[in-house]
């Protein structure tokens, strides 16, 4: 479909140069041509998401892991459980520490060095969703009250960046957390021990899984052009020319866990409603994908 549309564009007399040159020169104008016809240069409809895959347990060195692909965006999330001292004001609570890493390997747009603003913002968003919609009871991570607790380092590494990092990261985080297996610890005078026996069968009681209260999953959109047309699941190019972003995060009962809208001119409540509705369907699809790979 994409190719055909491109062809028709190139054919139309308005163009004296190739579609690709035109895209480079006037990205917005280029997109407008497509959007006006209800499609996007990559052949998607305005409200369609890119093909998505979720693979759990891809990293054996981690306690839990998942690789998520949304179109050209690939992220890997690994969860490592380590032992730490609890905070004095929360002696029976562990730590859940999500961080997203956007390194130069996944896009030339990112520079080496400390996390960029974008990386920090995504990390903070995910951290807030996990906390505010109390996905995990941190008391479950207690080993010995006031002495030792589990610290779950949830690290998301972006391998390939092509937009919509929030959806990809959150999905990876939730899939990885669902995949977490921690060996049952024993605590003796300040030392936490776990068994090193590799027990591969599913229903062994030498290790435990996390009790996740809910699984929030998100759907993101960008607002395009002065018409503020909604484009679902933006890719890199679409993010670059977007006027603003909307992200809706929903759990399996259809409860909203987060709604964020930044940038652009005022957005009508109608388009907000459209996003919520679309996010509902999308999060269902995502859950289906997650489960079939489990």
């Amino acid at each position, binding site marked *: 479909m994409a190719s055909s549309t491109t062809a028709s564009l190139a054919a139309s007399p308005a163009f004296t140069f190739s579609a690709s040159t035109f895209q480079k020169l006037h990205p917005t104008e280029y997109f407008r041509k497509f959007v006006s016809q209800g499609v996007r240069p990559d052949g998607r409809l305005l409200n369609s998401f890119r093909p998505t895959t979720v693979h759990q347990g891809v990293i054996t060195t981690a306690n839990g892991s998942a690789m998520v692909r949304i179109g050209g965006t690939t992220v890997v999330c690994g969860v490592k459980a380590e032992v730490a001292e609890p905070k004095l004001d929360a002696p029976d609570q562990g730590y859940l520490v999500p961080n997203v890493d956007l390194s130069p390997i996944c896009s030339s747009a990112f520079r080496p060095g400390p996390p960029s*603003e974008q990386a920090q*913002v995504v990390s903070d968003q995910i*951290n807030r969703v996990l906390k505010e919609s109390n996905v995990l009871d941190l008391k479950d991570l207690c080993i010995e009250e006031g002495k030792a607790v589990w610290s779950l380092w949830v690290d998301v590494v972006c391998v390939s960046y092509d937009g919509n990092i929030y959806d990809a990261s959150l999905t990876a985080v939730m899939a990885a957390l669902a995949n977490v297996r921690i060996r049952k610890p024993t605590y003796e005078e300040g030392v936490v021990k776990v068994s090193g026996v590799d027990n591969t069968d599913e229903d062994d009681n030498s290790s435990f899984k996390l009790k996740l209260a809910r699984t929030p999953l998100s759907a993101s959109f960008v607002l395009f052009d002065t018409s503020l047309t909604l484009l679902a699941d933006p890719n890199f190019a679409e993010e670059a020319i977007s006027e603003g972003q909307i992200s809706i995060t929903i759990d399996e009962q259809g409860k909203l866990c987060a709604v*964020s809208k930044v940038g*652009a001119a005022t957005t*009508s409540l*109608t388009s907000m409603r459209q996003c919520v509705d679309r996010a509902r369907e999308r999060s269902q699809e995502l859950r289906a994908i997650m489960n079939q790979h489990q």
Partner: protein
Amino acid sequence: MSRLDRTRTSPHQLRPFFSSQNLLNRADGSAQFDFGGSSVICSVVGPAEVKIRDEKLDRATIEIVARPLVGLPGVKDKTLERNIRETLEPLILSGLHPRTGIQIVVQTMKEDGCILSTAFNAAILALLDAGIPLKSILASVTCIIDSRTNQILLDPTIEETTHAKSTHVFVFDNKVSISSINPEDVAMDEDSKEPSHTGILFSDSTGLFTEDEFFECANACFKAAQAVHGFIRTAVSKKLEKEYQQTRA
């Protein structure tokens, strides 16, 4: 039902506003805005010289620096910076000042909930004071849904926030938004009695809430934001009257 801060009687009542403009002498513009016990001071410098690497040939570069009251800035403050920048950028007519920089510094002075909203309102007052050309102004209000009563509490204190099941921050401008011209929107407005021109400039909600609750919050905050808009207008008028009392003819 009396509010936890004991000064308010209604869940939709805002805490008293306070503002003062032009209170810093080194900045080009400055303002302080208070929602009761929460206070944010904001300074604006620019249009001023900008580092070559940040220079934009067609418009001014807008930089936001957010500083917390306690401790060193962290990822939270980065998110705050980004939220404020992404919201102000479309309001500021940066095309009128190409190859310059506009730096906005936001400093929390007192913390009792709703810091983001307080910061938004302080920032717009500071921009007005600095005479930065703007498409429109904005006003922000925060609300929570109380986990025990399921009631929407506007402009909550920190204490009230501890009982929140969800928190919602909204920003609205003073322009009639495109949504009102959009017909199906008007149509929809009849059944769900939403103000015909409720358009959201910025929205950030976390916690656990239903779709209807979200839109209820949006409307409650929209109504409350009108009071903030009115307050900003009065504050600016007062300042101008003081300035022009000599040349009033």
